[in-house]
């Protein structure tokens, strides 16, 4: 009788423990998803800002049609991108175009004094930061989640219920890492 009770008690403890582990994994997987959607929100925000920015700058930067055109093109490519790989590449091309634009702006004091433009510039800087930070938060979440799916004993549960490891968000295109070249010719 006593042995039976101990057995039942043991089984209950193990089940509770397993359920806790399973729920923990689900929570982490949701955190990863949530972090990913956060990146998307920020990318969309950047897309929304660009037409405004180009519109404001156009009047001041008559000789920089190419720079502005590059931004507009990169934006439409990024918005039309289908696969994740394409998207990542298009977005980093857009980042490159924007940082080049920001450098060129230094030559236009009138534009820099424009209240409207200053507000837009702050928004754009902040959005760029938010993209970087949401990426960072995503990678943090992925690392915690992956560790749990690979480490003993939670990897057993992960294997049983098909919790797959997530991928890190890496910037493949080197264009985003290096600062854009300024051409004075």
């Amino acid at each position, binding site marked *: 009788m006593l042995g039976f009770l101990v057995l039942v008690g043991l089984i209950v403890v193990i089940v509770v423990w397993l359920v806790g582990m399973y729920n923990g994994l689900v929570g982490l997987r949701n955190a990863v998803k949530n972090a990913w959607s956060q990146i998307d929100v920020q990318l969309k925000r950047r897309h929304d800002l660009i037409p405004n920015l180009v519109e404001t700058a156009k009047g001041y930067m008559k000789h920089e049609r190419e720079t502005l055109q590059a931004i507009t093109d990169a934006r439409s490519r990024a918005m039309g991108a289908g696969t994740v790989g394409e998207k990542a590449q298009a977005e980093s091309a857009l980042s490159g175009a924007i940082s080049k634009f920001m450098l060129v702006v230094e030559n236009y004091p009138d534009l820099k004094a424009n209240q409207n433009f200053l507000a837009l510039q702050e928004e754009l800087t902040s959005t760029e930061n938010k993209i970087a*930070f949401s990426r960072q938060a995503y990678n943090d979440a992925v690392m915690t989640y992956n560790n749990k799916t690979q480490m003993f004993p939670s990897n057993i549960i992960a294997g049983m219920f098909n919790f797959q490891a997530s991928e890190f968000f890496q910037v493949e295109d080197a264009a985003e890492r290096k600062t854009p070249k300024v051409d004075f010719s």
Partner: protein
Amino acid sequence: MWELIAQNRRRSWWLFLAMGALLIGLGYAIGATYAPPNGGVGGMIVAGIVWLVLSLISYSSGASIMLNSVGAKEVTPDIHPQLFNVVEEMKIAAALPKMPKVYVIDSPALNAFATGMKPENSAIAVTAGLLSRMNRDELQGVVAHETGHITNRDVQFVTFAGVMLGAIVIISEIFLRGLWYSGGSGRRLGSSRGKSGGQGGAIIAVAAVVLAILAPIMARLLYFAISRRREYLADATAVRLTRYPEGLASALEKIANSTEDLPKVNKAIAPMFIANPLKRAGAKLSDLTSTHPPISQRIRILRSIAGGSGYLEYQSAFNAVRGKGERILPNSALDQNEAVPIRPPAAEPKPSGQRRDVNDIVRAVNGFLFLNCACGLKMKVPPEYQKPTVTCPRCGTVNQIPTAELAAVAAVLETQRAGAAPEQPGQVYRRRGSGWESFRCGCGRTLQLSPAFAGDQITCSNCGRVTAIEDTKDA
């Protein structure tokens, strides 16, 4: 990050239990002195109730008491877009469940604090002086440090432990004064001695006095030790969130060099700030009794971080500067061998706003009205001003106080123009430019339009009425 929070919580619990034991012990000793032989239990219960009541008060309204006590005013994204953006960036980086509320304190001192019992309803307050002196990176560093306090659950801890410290201080104070006034051969002590028969009672009484003197000191030391450690921890979190140690380092440097004290801050809330707000008062105290680690040391640690911005790098920099094998971060947080490179500085070397702009922001938060006179003078009209016109002190021109046109007028205009019945909103205000503007709502509340305002209507925070904003370009 999660291990860090868990470890933090465990350590807090230990400290918490130690302080609780101190409180209960004090209650027992006092109770036993006054009403032997069974008074001890009563004393413990009373001490527990005092703590519980204070805790409940601080849990339910601690944040608002604190914000009110320093005169913090909530800011909208409209009034200071940059501060708001920086807070949102940190919210994203730390994956907070909700955006913290943002407050500004009208003071030239450089300081900031975080409050709120849960990450779901937190708040970050910065002083106007800080806004005017910091550039974007430095502001980000400060906000990241405060976000670190929120994610590490420091606010919760500081509040509860602070309340417990307060309870211990109050109880022992009352006891000691009671003794003083009842005199050395007090009637109560005397009678108790009579009842329980001499020595036992006397020993307990002496123990109670000793405990009443020592308990507040011990509780304080416990509290300060943990509070200092938490500052380092928040610094480490800030470095990791921003990936830019220099931002926080130069912000701390500016804070250290400023001489203004933050008024209206008492000792109880001092540990919540980024740097000790009671600088001059605390200057003489030794390391042991300070709520904050020496600022120069924090800067040195931040500046000697090399090779990355993870917790591991902070820990090794910490050890290098302090020269001791002290652990500030748990092993589990250091094991995650991740490469988090330090990012380059943002392209904005100068401070974000001049002193005058920040003054305007503080006035905007407090409901001042901005009026540009034809002569170029910018008049700032306080919200108490009731007359319909204001005379320019420089050129003598009589200016109308701008108000939103009331529903009736707007309705007439609207029907004339479109030939249709007007819809909501009822009030209309026509913008005159694209700079700072403000006007009075029908209810008398001042509504602000910042240069960044881009919407076409604004809702009064006082009466809830919606005012349509017409752009000058549209008209």
